[in-house]
């Protein structure tokens, strides 16, 4: 069983030959990893990572049109954006070269490759800022609903391009959770996020490819909806934000997989080694073999030493093979 088969099976709840592993390690520690291992790629090879998280492709927005709107108006509100065609067509293929290059590298290692694309809330945070967009959700729900619909059409075309290139999963990154609750109401989520998310998930599935979600924070009030969407995998299922593993195992493990388990907010880079080992063993004890891919809950932060990172992944590597 190669890595792609292993991860795909784990996501679909089918038997695997061993626990698949991965980690968001590069963003803050690439210098330290390169100094210790030669490159981030060498680190990924050393620990036989089963997945690859790809980024790249075109910007969704026509920033020239947006700059003009900003110049003409005191405040860039959702109603103004409806009057313009602000979305790019997600092509041509030459802007996908970075993705293609990464795919060649990781597919040579038979890794399962997933490409990240912004979800609806996250995409428009770039334009409005998160606080303004949250305000606009109360003031302009209909206008945002229409913008999210247009965003979904862009995402579908972007996904098509990536699927043609050979990615295994489309990963929609859309932070809906705060530390203790959703950022916005489940009713609003159902009305103006769900329909557009459904459009994307159904389209991706129609192409025979898996679809996953990243959302930090506590999203327990919409997990039934996530299951209804047919999403195949959720990252990170943040236990520290109240997302119980027991709840996942009881209610959702027959519906989707989770990617995560190694908490960057309370474990790796935070705990002393004996406590970190106990924590990693606890998570393996609870989730191993249960539709789970071991991964960090977000990018490992730069207060994690290379020694602690190595310690954690030596242990993860071993536990995955026990």
């Amino acid at each position, binding site marked *: 069983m190669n890595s792609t088969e292993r991860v795909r099976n784990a996501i679909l709840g089918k038997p695997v030959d061993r626990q698949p592993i991965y980690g968001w390690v590069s963003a803050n520690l690439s210098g330290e990893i390169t100094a210790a291992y030669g490159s981030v790629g060498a680190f990924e090879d050393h620990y036989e990572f089963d997945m690859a998280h790809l980024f790249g492709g075109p910007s969704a927005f026509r920033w020239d049109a947006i700059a003009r709107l900003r110049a003409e108006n005191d405040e860039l509100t959702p109603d103004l954006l409806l009057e313009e065609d602000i979305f790019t067509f997600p092509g041509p293929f030459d802007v996908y070269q970075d993705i293609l290059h990464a795919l060649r590298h990781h597919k040579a290692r038979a890794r399962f490759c997933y490409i990240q694309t912004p979800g609806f809330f996250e995409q428009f945070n770039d334009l409005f800022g998160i*606080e303004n967009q*949250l305000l606009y959700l*109360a003031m302009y729900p209909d206008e945002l609903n229409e913008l999210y619909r247009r965003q979904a059409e862009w995402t579908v075309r972007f996904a098509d391009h990536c699927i043609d290139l050979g990615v295994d999963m489309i990963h929609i990154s859309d932070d809906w959770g705060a530390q203790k609750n959703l950022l916005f109401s489940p009713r609003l989520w159902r009305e103006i996020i769900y329909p557009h998310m459904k459009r994307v998930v159904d389209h991706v599935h129609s192409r025979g490819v898996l679809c996953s979600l990243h959302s930090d924070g506590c999203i327990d009030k919409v997990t039934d909806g996530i299951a209804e969407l047919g999403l195949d995998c959720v990252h990170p299922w943040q236990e520290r*934000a109240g997302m119980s593993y027991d709840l996942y195992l009881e209610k959702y493990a027959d519906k989707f997989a989770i990617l995560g388990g190694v908490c960057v907010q309370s474990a790796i880079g935070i705990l002393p080694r004996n406590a970190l080992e106990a924590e990693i063993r606890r998570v393996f004890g609870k989730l191993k073999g249960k539709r789970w891919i071991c991964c960090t809950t977000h990018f490992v*932060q730069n207060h994690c030493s290379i020694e602690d990172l190595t310690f954690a992944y030596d242990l993860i590597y071993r536990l995955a093979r026990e």
Partner: protein
Amino acid sequence: MSILIEISENLQKGKAKIVKELVQKAVDEGIPAETILNEGLLSGMNVIGEKFKNNEVYVPEVLVAARAMNMGAQILKPLLAAEGVQSTGKVCIGTVQGDLHDIGKNLVKMMMEGKGLEVIDLGTDVAPETYVQTAIEQNCQVICCSALLTTTMGVMADVVKAAEAAGVRDKVKIMIGGAPVTQDYCDKIGADVYTSDAASAADAAVRLCNN
């Protein structure tokens, strides 16, 4: 329905324009600004704060209510000053050095203002010395520090140390909060109060200012 109740209820619905009109009408009717503030605007914001604490409303509803409160408060501000009305207390707030996340800090600020506190917003990326200097110069009873990142929460300990070094630790209370922050961490660094949400932070700040 009393106009003050109307102000409160429209504020809770985020009807900023109506709140502004009603506040002006209340002023024209001769209701003291302090009464309009306390029984209209702050009363409405208190309801929103409680509902937020109980997870009955979400961030958008808080933001839109705070916007309505600010519209009404703009009318009252000069009148309150003329009446010699004092705030409940004075707080300086900021996101700690190295951290640019401000939505949590802004929510706490809104909730505190909704309790009648005067809040000096230091913004984001605030150095420990800036909190302490501001507290000394502006006679703040409370310093309030926010952090979203595990990489920046350590600065909160530096704020406590800076207050000690400046000799004002017994005069100013230090509150901390943010996603990675815990009560254990608060105890470890010697801060005074940790709260896990914005509404509780505002309640705690009022208590600290009144002690």
